């Protein structure tokens, strides 16, 4: 079974803090994705990566950056957290051949 894990289920940070969200997958997938999920807006793509050290902007990259130094790990970074970044963050991975996305359990981030 594919397993995608995220470093925290719940996180509370203060405005202006630097926040790291970690995602690890164990299936040697090439592709990894970060989404944020807000009521009524569905899953919006922040960044994705096809390969190590590769990254592509999604639809809402402003205020976020990512890092992929190893194939199994994809990190989302909020350089200076703001209250409008309070959301559920979901990580997913997929293989280029299979394309099915496998999601992690999500991190509910609250910025106060």
């Amino acid at each position, binding site marked *: 079974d594919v397993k995608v894990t995220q470093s925290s289920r719940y996180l509370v940070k203060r405005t202006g803090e630097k926040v790291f969200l970690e995602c690890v997958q164990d299936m040697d997938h090439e*592709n990894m*994705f970060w*989404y944020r999920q807000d009521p*009524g*807006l*569905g*899953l*919006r*793509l922040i960044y*994705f990566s*096809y390969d190590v050290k590769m990254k592509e902007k999604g*639809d809402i990259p402003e205020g976020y950056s990512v890092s992929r130094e190893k194939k199994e790990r994809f990190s989302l970074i909020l350089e200076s957290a703001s209250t409008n970044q309070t959301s559920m963050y*979901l990580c997913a991975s*997929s293989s*280029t051949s299979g*394309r*099915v*996305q*496998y*999601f*992690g*359990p*999500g991190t509910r981030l609250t910025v106060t």
Partner: protein
Amino acid sequence: QQPVQSPQAVILREGEDAVINCSSSKALYSVHWYRQKHGEAPVFLMILLKGGEQKGHDKISASFNEKKQQSSLYLTASQLSYSGTYFCGTDNNNDMRFGAGTRLTVKP
């Protein structure tokens, strides 16, 4: 770039049928359907590749009209376990986007 889903929400009684639609403005390689139960991660249901295929999974099936860039998810004889939010994901050369979701509630 997000696909458009309709309806936004639907309430059913057990045994009733529902259709959820998904349309995209871009040419598609494939369409994915996922279901998310409250407090859980989305879970893959099925994938449809271009070629106008139709797939089934128990009493949940889907179609994909490549020319119209549309897909529909059909839930027949709904069960309580079908409740959740359904998302379509449109894949354009590995560039995946998800719709806003359709909240399905099945009542006894």
